[in-house]
């Protein structure tokens, strides 16, 4: 086991995959110099510019080219730097990568992993702070993954590279520097959630950086005598209905929290499913439907802090 940052863990997983399989290549802006967060550090040195491919500022072509590569025997890893810029490549993701296999009757497959970092990144305002996981969960053909820890970034990226389907892989920009123990031999199964804290009063579901906020809220709740079970969803599509519904059925109450805008966020899907399946009390805590502002006071309003989660927990079970 080694201690690595979240960025290094991804880098390490990618390097291992590239060593094992010459079909794996990476493409994106600035990755030759390691990527601006170091998430490709050293890769061009090891694998050469043919496999760690610098791209012009052409998101549409980067994603479209990756589809063409994937159809013809490669396994491209596509860097979008922040999910907000992937909006320049949405046709390529939704109409091309996601639909190719189906539309052409299974003649081809598109084994690509698109890295679309999400989340509020300090003082980066409205165009560099968005979380779009709900969008991609809505699109047939796409797998959606959002790791919360260095260990998961290693294991889930490895699994994403192996799965053969187009994967929207959403790292969180505030986690790049987070360090943790990483077992580089550990494997993960896409679609498996993890109970990261057991409890019996309320089930609290989250993913990505917000898992850490959820854990903070669970701890605060414990002090008030509330036992909260925290689930890290890890994969948003397919999401682990069995684990979530199993836990919720046990605790009898469920709360979902995410950093993304609450309105039409992925929390709605989970809350609606729990309500449909179990008919138990359910709540959501997501961001208000406002853009992210620059000033610290404004940015704070777009965050979903532990205190708001605690409030909602106490509404589900008075505490």
């Amino acid at each position, binding site marked *: 086991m080694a201690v690595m940052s979240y960025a290094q863990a991804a880098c390490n997983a990618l390097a291992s995959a590239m060593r094992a399989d010459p079909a794996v290549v990476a493409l994106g802006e600035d990755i030759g110099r390691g990527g601006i967060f170091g998430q490709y550090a050293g890769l061009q040195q090891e694998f050469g510019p043919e496999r760690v491919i610098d791209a012009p500022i052409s998101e549409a072509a980067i994603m479209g080219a990756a*589809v063409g590569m994937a*159809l013809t025997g*490669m396994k491209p890893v596509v860097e979008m730097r922040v999910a907000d810029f992937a909006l320049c490549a949405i046709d390529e993701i939704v109409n091309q990568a996601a639909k190719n296999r189906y539309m052409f009757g299974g003649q*081809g497959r598109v084994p690509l992993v698109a890295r679309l970092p999400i989340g509020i990144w300090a003082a980066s305002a409205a165009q560099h702070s968005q979380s779009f996981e709900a969008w991609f969960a809505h699109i047939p053909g796409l*797998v959606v993954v959002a790791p919360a820890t260095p260990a998961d970034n290693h294991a889930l990226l490895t699994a994403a590279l192996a799965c053969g389907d187009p994967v929207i892989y959403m790292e969180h920009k505030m986690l790049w520097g987070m360090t943790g123990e990483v077992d580089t031999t550990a494997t993960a199964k896409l679609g498996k959630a993890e109970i990261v804290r057991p409890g019996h009063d309320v089930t609290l579901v989250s993913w990505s950086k917000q898992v850490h906020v959820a854990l903070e809220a669970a701890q605060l709740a414990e002090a008030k005598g509330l036992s909260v079970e925290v689930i890290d969803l890890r994969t948003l599509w397919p999401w682990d209905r069995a684990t979530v519904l199993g836990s919720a059925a046990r605790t009898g109450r469920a709360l979902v929290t995410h950093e993304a805008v609450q309105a039409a966020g992925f929390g709605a899907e989970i809350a609606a499913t729990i309500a449909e399946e179990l008919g138990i009390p359910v709540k959501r805590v997501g961001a208000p439907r406002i853009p992210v502002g620059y000033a610290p006071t404004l940015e704070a309003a777009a965050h979903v802090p532990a205190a708001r989660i605690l409030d909602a927990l106490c509404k589900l079970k008075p505490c």
Partner: protein
Amino acid sequence: MNNDKADRLLTLYRTMARIRAFENAAEEASRGCVAAFGSSVTGTASVRGPLHLSTGQEAVAAGVCACLDKSDYLTSTHRGHGHTLAKGADTTAMMGELFGRATGTNHGKGGSMHIADFSVGMLGANGVVAAGIPIAVGAAHSAKIRGSGQIVACFFGDGAINRGPFLEGLNWAKVYELPVLFVCEDNRYSATTATQTMTAGAGAAARAESLGIPAVSVDGNDVLAVHEAAVQLVAEIRAGFGPRLLHAVTYRVKGHVSVDPAAYRDPGEVEAALASDPLRLAATRLAALGIDVAAIDAEAKAEIDAAVAAALAAPYPPPEAAFTDIQDTGAGQWQ
């Protein structure tokens, strides 16, 4: 004309005749099929949904694809039947796809707009204008990385050169000197709009040249001219000199989709275009060499008639097929 050339023309003519017969049969089978341009769906047609015919543009597909190997790749547009056939796809499977049958190239999942035959390197028609361009560039990049020697022919319309992916794809192809032949099939219309009115500057070739990509313009109704230009460009590409662009000027004889009466066009313009019909031009040349094309035409018609009959007889895909070929990860979790 020497013997070689006559043989080549005959081969090219045969491809064109087969495309023409295919398009005619598809058009026939589509009457009343789509709600647009004031038409509404009658529900009785065999070919339903938008049908974009390449009638009158056959020389471009035939002339270019004759330079390609089966292992080479091709990407196409919404108007892709000709490219698909010329690349070597089976017309029975193609017609099956237009009819939405389980026997179709795509097992009924795509239809005309998404026709594809990966087995002959035809990576798909595309319902999004210009979307095939970056995909072609990626396939070419892959061929270069793998050292496979394959090249890619990337077809797009004159209207597509005003979309961003045209610039992004061509720039990329030149930066990495990729083995791709860009083919601008210029039929002078973009749906109901004369493309010229919406296009600044001198068009596809000039834009390619500004990116350092050599370009050649040809009469896209002269199949030999198209072919000779393509042979030269493909040779350069195979020799590793990077991307090339072919600008082939032709004419969209039919409406934008089969139900479009194209009333926005001057009938005189259409008539003039018909006079330079690519099949007619080639047939006249062959006649001058003492070759009559009637037998070829008849053969083509028979082939396509059989394809129509087979398509008609074939079953639709079973409803369960709606849930296959999507993704393995999460298969079964449809809600």
